[in-house]
């Protein structure tokens, strides 16, 4: 295994653990964003073809879209409370 993949993999695992340990929903999103960076990089490194790059970009943009929606919902829920 390559040193680059090991570094990214270790960071991804660390982020997954921190997501479970953090109580605040808004701060979970920050860790989740870092995890999406790691997953998108790993997709590109493993698939290793131009199509893999397109998949990584699509994954990343979609994960950002869903984070956007979740953060918006948290704000709306605060108003209701």
């Amino acid at each position: 295994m390559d040193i680059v993949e090991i570094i990214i993999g270790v960071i991804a695992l660390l982020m997954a653990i921190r997501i479970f340990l953090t109580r605040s929903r808004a701060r979970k999103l920050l860790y989740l964003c870092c995890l999406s960076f790691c997953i998108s990089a790993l997709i590109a490194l493993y698939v290793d073809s131009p199509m893999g790059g397109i998949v990584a970009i699509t994954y990343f943009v979609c994960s950002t879209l869903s984070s956007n929606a979740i953060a918006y919902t948290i704000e709306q829920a605060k108003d209701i409370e």
Partner: protein
Amino acid sequence: MEIVEIIKVVVAGIICWLNFVLIDTYFGLPEKPGVLGAKTIGEKIRDIGGNIHGGYFMGNIVCSPDASAGTLLASIMSYLMGVEGGIIAALLVWIGNRLCADPGYAGTIGALTITAIIYLLSPIIEAKYFIAGMVLAIFTIQGFEHKYASILLGKIAKKMNRGE
């Protein structure tokens, strides 16, 4: 050999960090939350003792593909396809920005500048190290310690006259 590779990753990480933080700050990410969700995250960072402008910066990164995403995706495509890949990545990041209701200048320009940097540095540091470097750079901001990261980002924003 491993030591040389680790040094390359760290140097690439520093270049990526400067690239995305400077471009994002220049385009005013710390000034105001671009979408409603970024405001929530900024206020949460302020509640734990961080800087509100640094918090808006981090919230905007989460809610829309900015220069940070542009840097990662352009290094991925440069690794897989060369310079053309970086330009394709810039186009796709721009589409992603438009989906998130963002003007899209920061992401596109971040992708284009990192493509140029990777092209110029390709004899010394290969594009692969920039992918790991960018993950390391985003880890220092979003994943390591939110309070101190936001204070540092707030200071940079103040120095560049963005925010306060």
